[in-house]
């Protein structure tokens, strides 16, 4: 029986939460944000902010602005209102995780490079945190949201000032970024930042498992929110194939860094070239492994079939997805792997590492072990040679990409649930 007689006058906790979160003011600290994009994080952060705004929340996004660094200390150099509910504050700071290394390129044999970071990194992080105190005092907010370890200190300081709950988002762990050569200072900051936060968001179950096992973060304090994807940028995305019709193109998109496994891509390419008369390989991206990859192509005798593009703009990347027959992502460690979503959005099948976070979110994938170059080559040849397989992959993934689960608003919806838990406690 439901009726007026059953109504009781007592506080309803869920209702209270609903009132609090009807419109949240989010103070967000990021380190990778357009136009600075080293990987997928910039795209994902922007998509999340846009999603929150579409859902009626207000976001103040604080990001470092390396171009203005070194001119009179850390300060806000620009504040722009992108829309009524999205304000971007750019802080003059050299903070950048993949600062171009001035070290000489390592010889073939890889994984000899000790570190990928700037010498003054920790100072930059502290300076950014000082700026965060000021910003937190000046910009009223209901929740603080920080992305990856470099902004955890900033979030901590902001919470000191405002007393609002802190949500720490983790997109990549130090282990993902540096493999075996992790930096102890960064490990400590990452661990402390995650344990200090009121709530943690991991971008995949792979990442969640890692921080629970390695850092002792309480598992029930961690929410998993897979990245979403927005419609492609405007611009003419059509590009006639530079190799002529009928030549299959196999693409790699990403930083040329050990984490992404471009060397396995080259090794697999050699095996494919030996069995296919025309197929071409395009390596789209920049990074300090470029010289060694180049040398390796020459040594394998496939330099005439492998094309290096260097760093690509968004539009150029979109064009590459569209001319490719298949995109390969043999990442050694991939907490998520936005490249897979971007490629599928462009209608191009992907072959990806079995352990990547995106493999949890999408069913229609061809998966491989990153080190198994025979397996990668076998699957490339299958997709390139078998029109039935290629068509089936395209059709099935196309269906899947229209699923709401992967829609642009889903990460924002789940993130707000996380805010709710951070505010009320579990």
């Amino acid at each position, binding site marked *: 029986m439901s009726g007026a007689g059953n109504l009781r006058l007592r506080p309803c906790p869920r209702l209270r939460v609903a009132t609090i979160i009807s419109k949240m003011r989010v103070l967000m600290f990021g380190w990778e944000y357009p136009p600075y994009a080293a990987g997928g994080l910039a795209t994902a952060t922007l998509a999340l902010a846009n999603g929150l705004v579409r859902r009626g929340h207000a976001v103040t996004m604080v990001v470092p602005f390396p171009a203005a660094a070194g001119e009179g200390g850390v300060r806000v150099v620009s504040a722009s209102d992108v829309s009524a509910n999205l304000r971007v504050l750019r802080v003059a700071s050299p903070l950048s995780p993949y600062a171009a290394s001035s070290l000489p390129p390592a010889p073939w044999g890889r994984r000899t490079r000790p570190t990928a970071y700037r010498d003054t990194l920790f100072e930059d992080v502290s300076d950014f945190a000082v700026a965060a105190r000021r910003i937190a005092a000046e910009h009223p907010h209901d929740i603080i949201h920080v992305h990856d370890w470099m902004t955890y200190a900033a979030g901590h300081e902001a919470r000191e000032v405002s007393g609002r709950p802190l949500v720490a988002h983790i997109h990549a762990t130090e282990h993902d970024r540096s493999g075996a050569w992790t930096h102890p200072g960064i490990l400590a900051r990452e661990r402390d930042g995650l344990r200090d936060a009121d709530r943690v968001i991991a971008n995949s179950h792979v990442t969640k498992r890692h921080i629970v096992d390695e850092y002792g973060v309480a598992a029930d304090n961690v929410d998993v929110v897979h990245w979403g994807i927005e419609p492609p940028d405007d611009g003419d995305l059509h590009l006639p194939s530079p190799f002529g019709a009928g030549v299959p193109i196999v693409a790699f998109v990403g930083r040329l860094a050990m984490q992404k496994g471009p060397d396995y891509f080259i090794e697999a390419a050699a095996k494919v070239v030996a069995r296919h008369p025309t197929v071409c390989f395009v390596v789209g991206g920049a990074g300090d492994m470029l010289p060694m990859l180049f040398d390796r192509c020459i040594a394998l005798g496939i330099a005439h079939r492998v094309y290096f593009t260097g760093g690509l703009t968004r539009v150029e990347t979109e064009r590459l997805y569209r001319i490719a027959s298949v995109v390969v992502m043999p990442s050694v460690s991939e907490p998520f792997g936005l490249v897979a979503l971007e490629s599928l959005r462009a209608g191009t099948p992907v072959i990806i590492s079995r352990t990547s976070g995106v493999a949890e979110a999408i069913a229609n994938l061809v998966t491989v072990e990153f080190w198994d170059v025979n397996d990668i080559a076998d699957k490339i040849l299958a997709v390139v040679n078998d029109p039935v397989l290629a068509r*089936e992959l395209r059709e099935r993934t196309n269906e899947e990409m229209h699923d709401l689960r992967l829609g642009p608003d889903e990460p924002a919806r789940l993130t707000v649930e996380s805010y709710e838990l951070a505010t009320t406690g579990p």
Partner: protein
Amino acid sequence: MDACFYFQLHQPRRVRRYQVFDIGSGAEYFDAAKNADTLRRVAERCYLPATRLLTELARTDGARVAMSISGVLVEQMERATPDTLKSLQALVAGGGAELLSETSHHSLASLRNADEFADQVRLHRHMMKRVFGVVPRVFRNTELIVSDGLTPVVKALGFDAMLVEGADTVLGWRSPNHVYASRSAPSLRLLPRNYRLSDDVAFRFSARDWSEWPLTADKYASWIAANPGDVVNVFMDYETLGEHQHEGSGILDFLRALPGALRRAGVRMVTPSELATRKPVGLLSYPGPMSWADTERDVSAWLGNGLQHAAHERLYSLRDVVLGTGDLELIGTWRALSTSDHFYYMSTKWHADGDVHTYFSPYATPYEAYISYMNVLRDMEQRVAGLKTRLKTEGRRPETKAPARSSRKPKAAKAKAAKAMAAKRKK
């Protein structure tokens, strides 16, 4: 009220991860170690304990069930788990189980090639005669696939009755609890599965969120007794008993208590061949192929997407040349590739039923299953081509095309083939 319990026993020979680089290398197609391991595990958890229990129940309670054992499974048991085969032989010899007929390789031949279908039914019949000393009178097709086009073929192969899915779309207002006949072959009895009572055991037995959990033998027997009609047909995988429903769920205790509970409820256990002698209450028509799988009850689990169709077509495009070589080992391998499971693993039905597919698949993705399978077929094409050239250079001519109707195959040649197979097995 009567109850007919039927169990399907089948294990495929799973194809190993077979890469393009393996083509022409002479590498094995099947993952022998994994197949043997899986069989031993299933035998230990289900086949052995369940079979011993049924043998005992046949002696003490007069329990009688029906079984069909695929030819690919019998071959694997002969090699990997001879004890299990012996226990099944004892069960059949003791009258505890009636054996049914099916295709030797648990294939989808009925959907693609009538000659191959007839060949595989005969191969299975010979195998049952050789291994168990019986000739089955009742037929069950792979995964209960049936259509109006198939029932006359089954009748022509000499069967009295056939097991079918008691799908609502076919039965309409009618109850599955009767013996029916086929509209397109009225002398063939059809025994429709009561899927509700079957799934109560096969799927829901250990579901703790089910309102009827825990299901006791007495409760279940009372449901059967309370059903309107003449006979309740409970059909499921044998692996339900200890594998799909693990031992800790109490499934074997349930089975142990069942014959007594049925007797107390006034339910008699009958076998399909007894039902085949009864007068049908009406005719059933299956316009399109129907099976017992998934929510659709069609054949889309095996032939639902482009990959599955392409792979199946390619397999059958090789049939004539493979049979034409007269190479018994090659023909056996080709037939092992016709097993329905290979196509099941390529299914991309993710939602709802997809979970079931993933549970059973040895591959990470359906695409991987397809890639390995197609590489194997490419290798087989090359082997066949190589074989033909070798025979030519040796001055022997391969048998020309396979006979249009294999029923006209000379009996002597077949007997010889069977003898050779048997001799090989003894080695």
